[in-house]
């Protein structure tokens, strides 16, 4: 699915990612943990194609394609999804309209006709219900005056409606209350199948109780310093980054 080799990235001359390797296969869930400022969000932006990042070295292969050559929207329509750490507000654009536009953009890219209005309404309703998002909410402008947690749930709604192949969740758990955390995790688990993959960025082992990862990676100063299975998250919880990085 995704194969990152020897990735070096800088922004405004500042080196952020310094030789990162990561390989994610179909059907796998990987968790990425690491201290503030270690380069997690930067990695998610580079994968989704945000500009101003300079790729100094390395390759990224996505399903046999050179990911770095694709435009942002091409990557998205090829099934790459980023649930943002800080989702954007878009004033004047109704949430439901935004969802419809996103879905139809993808269908257009795939050469399919627009989704029928009724079919769309049904899909949105059922997905929103699963996530406990009210229809009132969907009539409001996208993310405008949403609470922090509501914005995160909105990201997961978008994800479940677009059913991506490779989803990156950047600290989706931060800001969620206990119930929302469970609901969001169920949403992710429901989507999980043998054809898609997840990269879950988090600071808290608690999320990983709900979304059981196949692999856990620890990133420090732009490099993966340790990888392991779920037990690594538990070990981290106990020891903290400092000690773990030292034993690496």
């Amino acid at each position, binding site marked *: 699915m995704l194969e990152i080799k020897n990735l070096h990235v800088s922004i405004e001359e500042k080196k952020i990612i310094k030789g990162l390797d990561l390989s994610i296969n179909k059907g796998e869930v990987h968790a990425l943990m690491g201290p503030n400022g270690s380069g997690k969000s930067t990695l998610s932006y580079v994968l989704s194609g945000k*500009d101003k990042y300079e790729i100094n070295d390395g390759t990224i292969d996505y399903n046999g394609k050179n990911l770095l050559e694709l*435009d942002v929207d091409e990557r998205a329509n090829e099934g790459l999804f*980023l649930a943002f750490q800080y989702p*954007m507000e878009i004033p*004047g*654009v109704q949430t439901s309209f935004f969802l419809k536009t996103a879905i139809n953009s993808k269908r257009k890219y795939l050469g399919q006709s627009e989704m029928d209005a009724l079919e769309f309404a049904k899909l949105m309703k059922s997905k929103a219900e699963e996530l406990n998002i009210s229809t009132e909410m969907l009539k409001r402008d996208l993310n405008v005056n949403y609470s922090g947690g509501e914005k995160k749930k909105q990201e997961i709604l978008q994800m479940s409606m677009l059913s991506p192949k490779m989803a990156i969740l950047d600290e989706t758990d931060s800001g969620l209350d206990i119930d929302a955390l469970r609901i969001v995790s169920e949403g992710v688990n429901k989507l999980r199948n043998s054809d898609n993959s997840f990269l879950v960025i988090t600071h808290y082992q608690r999320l990983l109780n709900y979304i059981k990862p196949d692999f856990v990676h620890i990133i420090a100063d732009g490099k993966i310093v340790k990888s392991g299975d779920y037990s690594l998250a538990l070990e981290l919880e106990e020891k903290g980054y400092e000690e773990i990085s030292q034993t690496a």
Partner: protein
Amino acid sequence: MAATEQTIKQVNTLGNSDYKYGFSTEVDEIRPPKGLNEEIIKFISAQKDEPEWMLEWRLNAFKVFNKLPKPQWAKLNIPEIDYQDCYYYSIPKSLKDKPKSLDEIDPEILKTYEKLGIPLKEQKMLSGIAVDAVFDSVSVATTYKKQLSDLGIVFCSISEAVKTHPELVKKYLGSVIPVSDHSFAALNSAVFTDGSFIYIPEGVRCPVELSTYFRINAMNTGQFERTLIIADKDSYVSYLEGCTAPMRDENQLHAANVELVALDNAEIKYSTVQNWYPGDKEGKGGIYNFVTKRGACRGKNSKISWTQVETGSAITWKYPSCILQGDNSKGEFYSVAITNNMQQADTGTKMIHIGKNTSSKIISKGISAGKANNTYRGLVNILSKAKNARNFTQCDSLLIGNQCGAHTVPYIESSNSDSMVEHEATTSKINEDQLFYCQQRGLNSEDAVGLIVNGFCKEVLQHLPMEFAVEAQKLVAISLEGSVG
């Protein structure tokens, strides 16, 4: 490539091939020689079989025009207009002897309107919308006439109204925009050709949208629209005008005078979707759109609301205004003005508060891309008798790229200490992070810009009649789009 950079590039490659309405129609025309003089005015009047008083009114206006200087205040770069190098009248020959029914109209002309999405034939007519179609200097047809006249509503071309309702025309024509107001107003009064006339009788709520579709077809021909709308006591009407023209290398002039009168408790909602040919990306060709629109809230509790979506024209110069004479009367102005490539727009409104407790609201959204310039110019004038007057003004500008300009020029004059005036203004660049977010959800950069700009304009667009809101949203996106690729 940066999302904005890419969008700018696409916007810049926008050629005139993207203007959907750029075709022209082959018709035989009746057209007197070029030039502006008394003879041509007499010719126009004779062509229209006008009564003597109308001709005199025109000739007087021409005298006034000759004495007035050209307006200077707009922040526009207007090339000298050679009034002698322009045709003032052009009508398809087939329309000379007033066709009695649509069957007598040249099928080419009917086809033109069909192509523009305005079918005039009974079985295809737009439901809920009555249309007056103006082709160059003449009204082609007006739909739903019979149904409207059963309610006492008069909806016809102004040429027809001069003959059928002279008392109303004499009373109100020029009563809101005096002939001597400024040179374009005087010019229009001298040579106006066609436009719509609407009278809504006392107590009647017009059940359908009334609309006029203006089409410029003939070359080198100025279009001088004249529209007059009168809403009698306790009446209501919603009116919409649309405009398109063929692509030509020469500039063409559209100089309109539009007058609205609202009596006691009456309400007029006037919407414009202006999509005249803007010229090519080097600024060659396009319509000069010099428009004077003014509404008088004469009666108490009356209301006039202007909504405009201005996307076309090489130069737009218009300030739809409200004169709030009646106590408790209300004026509103909702505007979206988009300029791209070399387009220039100088638009805004005047709210003149005369009566007590009058209120006005101004929401203006200006979007500039390419090398375009966009100016909001407004005047809120509160006279000493206007006790307790209120105004709220909000002007937002959005810039796409580094070569365009946005300017806000709000004048406020208040001679009354009880009044309250609020003004808010913002200027911002299109937000990179919002664009990235939309693109991450699969929208290409053009669609992302279209979506964000439409969101920016929502407060205005939602005031358009529902039937047109969707079209207007598409137009907003298209006018900022380049050819995809």
